[in-house]
């Protein structure tokens, strides 16, 4: 279905490929590649980037597995809240979570790889829960029930039935986590200390602190090559591992005693791990003058911190700006991502090209895209520099692959014979598509709209590198407040971070609530 692919391909070409190509052709000179690759310390940077990403991914997959199972398979009180709790950290700007972890971790951990890895796991559990959980939720329960009836022990069911069925989602999740931790920027800068830069940090340093844009461009290409290879390789595995499933599974309440115990224990532990850093973060907004105070919150409504003294950061106004951007970004990324997922699923063979293409922006250093846009859209009537919509568009570039990731496993698992059956029963192709495909996709589509909005709300990296006019977004406002000397701006920064946290939680809660309501209606209709 090439028509479906047209919009995503065009968007990608105009707002990603073109700027990047313009930058490369502008700055690269004959000696650039050898200069950049022979720079002292590069091997150290590459090695650190790689091993911390591998360790972070492995740990995240291992730790995220239990909550993914819990949230996909069981209905229990507080499930929605737990799901939001797990997802929120992923959406928060790294500068905020980094600050919370600095307060939480013992001083001997500051500036170590350990601190970076712990934060990475905390950030990315959401990816495992979301991606693996989405698949797990549609696994037919009768398969596992059948295995158990045939005498399989729980470990055997997991090993021979569940894991093979989940494999494509596991690959997808591991790929995304690897991509995120490999390109980690904020957490590494804050927690890793000066001795542990990732490739992404090094690229930004060269471009912005040394003015070495061609060196940065070369390293950005190197990073793309590495990640492109990883994503391509993994998407082949994913396709091979895709299993076509019949009827979806249903989440249920825990019945057996060991199940109830698992739900209680895993639920409590997950909540604890996710909540402690956020509580530390929130509590900091109430710390003033060595005691507790509400003053930072009282002063949130205006940018004045003392009569006549103002930082020019209006926290509440920044919230409105961010919400507007979030709506635009969600709209764009759901439309583009939805079309792309359909095209990829329909194409089967060549689809992986578009799939990898949409993931590329995630692996490209934000500073190179920002600088590329700057010198690409610079002539009237296309002088788009400092246009407000470039920012939500940048957010959409980041969020779209998540929409695709969330939809694709579901779309791929729709058996062809269901559509064929509908056709046989006299449904027109459109009717069959509506009845079979759209119905299944509606739920993950709503959820991914929320996900995209939340990603936009917390996006920091791309926003900082785009030239901005007017109000700052919430993450930018937070980093400015936290970046000033003096106690009030600091506490206000944490207060605003708390608001962001709640807003993100609400969006995710509403989106998954809508998805649940839809799921319920569907179950009722069937």
């Amino acid at each position, binding site marked *: 279905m090439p028509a479906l692919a047209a919009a995503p391909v065009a968007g990608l070409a105009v707002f990603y490929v073109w700027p990047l190509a313009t930058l490369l052709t502008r700055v690269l000179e004959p000696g650039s590649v050898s200069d950049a690759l022979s720079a002292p310390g590069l091997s150290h940077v590459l090695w650190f980037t790689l091993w911390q990403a591998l360790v972070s991914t492995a740990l995240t997959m291992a730790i995220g597995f239990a909550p993914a199972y819990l949230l996909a398979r069981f209905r229990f009180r507080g499930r929605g809240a737990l799901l939001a709790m797990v997802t929120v950290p992923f959406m928060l700007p790294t500068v905020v979570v980094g600050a919370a972890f600095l307060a939480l971790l013992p001083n001997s951990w500051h500036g170590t790889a350990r601190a970076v890895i712990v934060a990475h796991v905390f950030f990315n559990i959401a990816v495992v829960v979301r991606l693996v959980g989405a698949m797990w939720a549609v696994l037919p329960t009768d398969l596992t029930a059948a295995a158990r009836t045939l005498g399989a022990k729980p470990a055997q069911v997991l090993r021979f039935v569940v894991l093979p069925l989940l494999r494509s989602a596991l690959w997808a999740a591991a790929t995304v986590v690897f991509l995120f931790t490999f390109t980690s920027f904020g957490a590494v800068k804050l927690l890793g200390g000066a001795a542990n830069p990732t490739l992404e940090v090094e690229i930004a*340093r060269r471009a912005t602190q040394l003015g070495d844009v061609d060196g940065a461009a070369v390293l950005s290409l190197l990073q793309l090559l590495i990640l492109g290879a990883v994503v391509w390789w993994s998407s082949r595995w994913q396709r091979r591992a895709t299993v076509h499933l019949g009827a979806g599974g249903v989440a249920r309440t825990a019945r057996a005693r060991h199940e109830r115990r698992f739900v209680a224990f895993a639920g409590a532990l997950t909540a604890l791990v996710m909540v402690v850093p956020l509580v530390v973060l929130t509590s900091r907004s109430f710390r003033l003058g060595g005691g507790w105070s509400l003053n930072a919150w009282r002063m949130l409504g205006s940018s004045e911190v003392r009569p006549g003294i*103002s930082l*020019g950061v209006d926290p509440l106004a920044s919230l409105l700006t961010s919400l507007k951007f979030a709506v*635009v970004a969600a*709209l764009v990324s759901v439309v583009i991502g939805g079309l792309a997922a359909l095209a990829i699923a329909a194409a089967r063979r060549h689809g992986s090209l578009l799939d990898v293409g949409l993931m590329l922006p995630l692996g490209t250093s934000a500073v190179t895209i920002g600088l590329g846009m700057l010198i690409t859209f610079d002539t009237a009537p296309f002088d788009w520099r400092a246009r407000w919509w470039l920012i939500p568009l940048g957010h959409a570039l980041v969020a779209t692959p998540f929409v695709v990731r969330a939809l694709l496993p579901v779309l791929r698992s729709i058996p062809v014979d269901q559509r064929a059956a509908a056709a046989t029963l006299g449904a027109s192709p459109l009717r069959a598509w509506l009845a079979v495909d759209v119905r299944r996709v509606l739920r993950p589509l709503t959820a991914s709209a929320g996900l995209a909005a939340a990603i936009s709300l917390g996006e920091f990296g791309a926003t900082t590198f785009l030239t901005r006019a007017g109000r700052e977004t919430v993450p930018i406002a937070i980093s*400015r407040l936290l970046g000033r000397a003096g106690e009030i701006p600091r506490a206000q920064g944490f207060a605003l971070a708390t608001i962001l946290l709640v807003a993100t939680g609400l969006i995710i809660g509403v989106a998954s609530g809508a998805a649940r309501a839809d799921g319920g209606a569907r179950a009722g209709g069937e």
Partner: protein
Amino acid sequence: MKKALLAGLAAGLLLVACGSDESPSSATPAAITLVTYDSFPTKDTPLNTALSAFTADTGVVVNIVTAGDTGTMVTKAVLTSGNPEGDVMWGVDNTLLSAAIDEKVFDGEPSEVDFGDVCVNYDIGWFTDHGVQPPTTMDDLLLPEYKDLLVVENPATSSPGLAFLMATIAHTGEDAWQQYWTDLRANGVEVVDSWDSAYYERFSGAAGSAGEKPLVVSYGSSPPAEVVFADPPRDDAPTGVVGSTCFRQIEYAGVLRGTEHPDEAAQLLAFLLSEPFQKELPLTLFVYPANPSVALPEVFTKFAVVPTNPFTFDPATIAANRQQWQDQWTEIVLR
């Protein structure tokens, strides 16, 4: 459904298209754009009020766009040299000025608009409690009584970090600074990546900080900021400045080459140097006005330190050596 999706896409594009009317660079002839760094306020401060007064007097509307931190802003200015993002640029400092001038970013000479100092700050309470005198010279930092007490920023990633490295180079000379940092490392200096982390996470003197190091590389104007932003209000500063460790940072503004409004841009630049604008700088950006006729607020005269002989290098020397200094420093201190 396909149609619905297409309609949605069209609606999205329409939204984007309509929204672009709000953009600041649309066609009113007397509107010009001031390009500046992130921490420059875009609304609501006395600086912005002063700019509104300028608009009322001259009819020239000033839109502010922020281009990132100072380094990012200069990188962008170099890439867009001749076809700039705005008409006037505020805030290029002396560590980056050479690159901007070499790449012909400005039309004519940029002017000095403000200055500040990067100095070692100390936690007054900690030194009183421990019965230790705070250090007074650069060489004091190598003494055993100050072992493990100092936290600095990485000069490769942080502008105060770079300023302090240059202070040590100016102090010891081009051939001896490597030994100074070897000794400083042996004396337990801690390095973090950013000023935020150093000041708020590691330094013990910032109000509300959980840090435990009583010495930090920060600004000469940090003590007044501690007073101004204290809650509950206080009338003494919790921190002090070691005046002999300071490096002078100077910021410049200039008309960007390629501007379509050279007259209005020149008018704005003159206003940025005038008293009504300059007098608002201390309490909004925590820097000193370059215009010497401007009086300082009391909290500055009381708690800030303006060193008599701060270290400094001319922009060309900095540009020629910066990367080499950063690389050598990384080898000595981090590897």
